[in-house]
């Protein structure tokens, strides 16, 4: 029943998407009233997909194991909240979520922005219709969550235990919102290319969409990093895994996009940059979707390793991007302005910013698919891992940090060099202060440590000095308010850099065998292994150790576990973490040695690791505030 109606809903949405991708565009060329079909069609598609999604959710809640996808990803014992999140726990359901969100964005676009720019928005919706057509087609024909199981299944497989976790509940939706949101600037840019006209005022209504999707993408990636840290049990926060890279590349481009949009809106230049970056951003989103599901790369995230699905997506991507890039190749020259920029202008700094972010993104792409390229050419198999990315990315980012601090103070068209001369005091403080502190505290350091702290303080001080100037020199504080999101976001970046530098340089990790009722010394604290007991969870059994940590500030208890879920055959490790802003203490339980009186433990000390995620969240908040502020500006206009 559910299966039938679910499929029906999909078919309807497919047909509607077909109509949406054809009619408004045709209406544009024929200049007839078909243009106005865009909004109603978008709404109808949303309703159809929403119905499909709700039906799938109901199937999970009712343990409808006659549907194969439900049986593969759920179980009668699964806690209720995870039955909701299991809907996107596997490939088919997550694609349905993807398409639901695309539909949500398109409805929002239709409801909010259509009145500001009817022609362009209708065309954009049509482009989105084309994408929807492709993805719904992909779901319906190759990855249908409503497929029935070939035989009767009494009890489902269960959701992967790694996914039974609150972090996993919000990470994919946030990430998808961001990924999918990049379709809006993409559709806008294609619409612009079709029309051959691009007015800088159009960015006024588009910018809130940009900052909103950027904010979601930032939150999504941050959540993924935080989740990997506490759930995977190894204490790392970023692994340069192909799928992490697949989310980071669009983020870099989206960042370049927001900055580029600022130039186009203010000065009318960088139009072809904007269009190109929009296309690349969404291209990387789609590419990310491809990489995870096609079996092309080895990744801890890989959903389905199915080359036939991979081929479908590849063809889809080929069509969507091939057409857009062809349009770009043919039409973009209309938008180029041949102005030369002054070196010290804000445009110039933002151009440099664009370039660094683009090169960084392409570098990550290169590293991620290089093994694939070599293998395809029969040149053997290599691995490109963290050592490569850490090194290259760091070197690329260092000059960018300098540019950020300077660029904040620059003026449009041309800045006077005296502006930058006053930053010399900031530079001196930014360099000397961390160096003195490190020497005073007698800490180990390398040049990278210093560069990290210099970057942090340089960006922070530069941003705050600018904020101070705006605040105190401007009676109405209008300029300050307008720049507030930028100030917040860049401060967040600085905090993020501080967290990364501390964690990378001052973390401590040891592995020790500890006997029951004995203690060890680590990180100037005493760790006492006091108890070992059995614990029962809703759908797992565990061995839990009690470790009591004593230091100058008192006592903290840790309870690391080894868990076995009802349908798994190996024991997972569930780390025990004590967190505050200044440090995380992390204890993971390993394996027993010769019986059960001695166990292997991993202890970690991670200074200021929370600042990594806090910094990123602050950046996202900046993005959110920007969206709200710009949106209110629009409504008042």
């Amino acid at each position, binding site marked *: 029943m559910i299966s039938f109606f679910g499929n029906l809903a999909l078919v309807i949405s497919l047909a509607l998407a077909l109509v949406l991708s054809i009619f408004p565009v045709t209406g544009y060329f024929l200049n007839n009233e078909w243009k106005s079909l865009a909004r109603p069609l978008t709404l109808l598609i949303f309703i159809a997909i929403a119905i499909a999604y709700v039906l799938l959710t109901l199937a999970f809640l009712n343990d409808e194991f006659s549907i194969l996808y439900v049986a593969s990803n759920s179980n009668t014992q699964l806690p209720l909240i995870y039955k909701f999140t299991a809907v996107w726990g596997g490939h088919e359901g997550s694609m349905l979520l993807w398409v639901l969100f695309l539909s949500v964005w398109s409805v929002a676009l239709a409801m909010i922005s259509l009145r500001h720019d009817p022609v362009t928005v209708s065309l954009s919706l049509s482009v989105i219709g084309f994408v929807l057509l492709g993805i719904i087609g992909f779901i319906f024909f190759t990855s249908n969550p409503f497929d029935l199981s070939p035989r009767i299944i009494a009890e489902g497989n269960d959701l992967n235990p790694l996914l039974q976790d609150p972090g996993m509940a919000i990470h994919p939706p946030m990430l998808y919102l961001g990924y999918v949101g990049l379709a809006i600037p993409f559709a806008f840019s294609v619409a612009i290319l079709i029309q051959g006209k691009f007015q800088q005022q159009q960015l006024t209504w588009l910018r809130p969409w940009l900052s909103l999707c950027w904010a979601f993408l930032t939150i999504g990636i941050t959540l993924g990093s935080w989740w990997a840290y506490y759930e995977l049990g190894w204490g790392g926060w970023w692994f340069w895994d192909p799928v992490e890279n697949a989310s980071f590349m669009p983020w870099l481009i989206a960042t370049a996009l927001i900055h580029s949009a600022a130039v186009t809106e203010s000065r009318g230049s960088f139009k072809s940059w904007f269009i190109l970056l929009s296309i690349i951003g969404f291209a990387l989103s789609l590419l990310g979707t491809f990489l995870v599901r096609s079996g092309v790369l080895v990744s801890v995230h890989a959903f389905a390793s199915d080359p036939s699905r991979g081929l479908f997506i590849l063809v889809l991507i080929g069509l969507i991007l091939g057409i857009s890039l062809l349009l*770009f190749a043919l039409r973009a020259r209309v938008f180029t302005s041949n102005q030369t920029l002054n070196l010290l202008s804000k445009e110039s700094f933002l151009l440099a910013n664009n370039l660094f972010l683009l090169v960084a993104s392409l570098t990550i792409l290169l590293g991620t698919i290089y093994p694939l390229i070599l293998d395809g050419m029969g040149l053997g198999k290599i691995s490109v891992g963290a050592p490569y990315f850490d090194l290259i990315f760091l070197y690329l980012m260092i000059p960018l940090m300098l540019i950020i601090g300077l660029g904040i103070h620059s003026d449009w068209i041309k800045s006077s060099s005296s502006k930058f001369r006053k930053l010399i005091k900031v530079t001196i403080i930014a360099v000397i202060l961390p160096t003195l502190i490190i020497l005073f505290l007698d800490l180990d350091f390398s040049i990278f440590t210093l560069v990290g702290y210099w970057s942090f303080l340089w960006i922070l001080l530069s941003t705050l000095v600018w904020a101070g100037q705006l605040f105190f020199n401007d009676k109405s504080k209008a300029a300050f308010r307008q720049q507030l999101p930028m100030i917040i976001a860049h401060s967040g970046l600085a905090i993020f850099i501080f967290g990364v530098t501390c964690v990378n340089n001052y973390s401590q990790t040891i592995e020790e065998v500890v006997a029951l009722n004995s203690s060890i010394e680590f990180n100037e604290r005493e760790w006492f292994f006091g108890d070992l007991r059995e614990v029962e969870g809703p759908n797992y059994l565990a061995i839990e150790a009690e470790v009591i940590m004593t230091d100058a500030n008192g006592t903290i208890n840790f309870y690391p576990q080894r868990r076995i879920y009802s349908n798994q055959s190996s024991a997972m490790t569930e780390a025990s973490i004590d967190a505050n802003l200044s440090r995380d203490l992390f204890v993971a339980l390993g394996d027993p040695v010769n019986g059960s009186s001695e166990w292997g433990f991993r202890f970690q000390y991670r200074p200021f690791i929370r600042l990594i995620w806090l910094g990123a969240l602050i950046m996202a908040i900046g993005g959110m505030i920007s969206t709200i502020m710009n949106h209110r500006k629009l409504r008042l206009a």
Partner: protein
Amino acid sequence: MIKYFIPLLFFVLLSFFLYRGLSLNPTYVPSPFIGQEVPIFSLPDLLSENPSSLITNESVINQTYLINVWATWCVGCRVEHGFLNEISLSSGLPILGLNWRDERNEAINWLETLGNPYQFIAYDQLGEVAIDFGVYGAPETFLVNSDGIILYKHISPLTPEIWQQEFIPRIIDSCGSYPCASL
């Protein structure tokens, strides 16, 4: 101008590689031993009580032969075992078994129950020799020619199809015929 076509060209190139990637297996690790000599090793004989009875890289010489890495804990080895029994009789090739990280008595029982296709069995309790062979996932099967050069390595259970497609042609090259006439 040409420069606007660069993104498109770049994308076409990228798609080409991604398309190629679809037919590749990303987790498969090719062996650097093809064309190289069998690594030197010396291990106890699984079936012998005598600790100085050793199986080495010189146990089989001047013959084309197979080395098969197996263990009782390996599900795939169980799956291919029947086929191994067959080819030990029909192919004319001796098979040297490398018992990987196993429990000696269990291994012996396993063979008694399921049949023993091996002429020699080396007992690699610690897995050191397996590492020297670049083994990462049992079962693995190596084809070695009469000069002691590794001609081919197959990872995962042997099937008649694989045997037909990959092994028989190489055996014919090396031996002159299939089944191979043993000395």
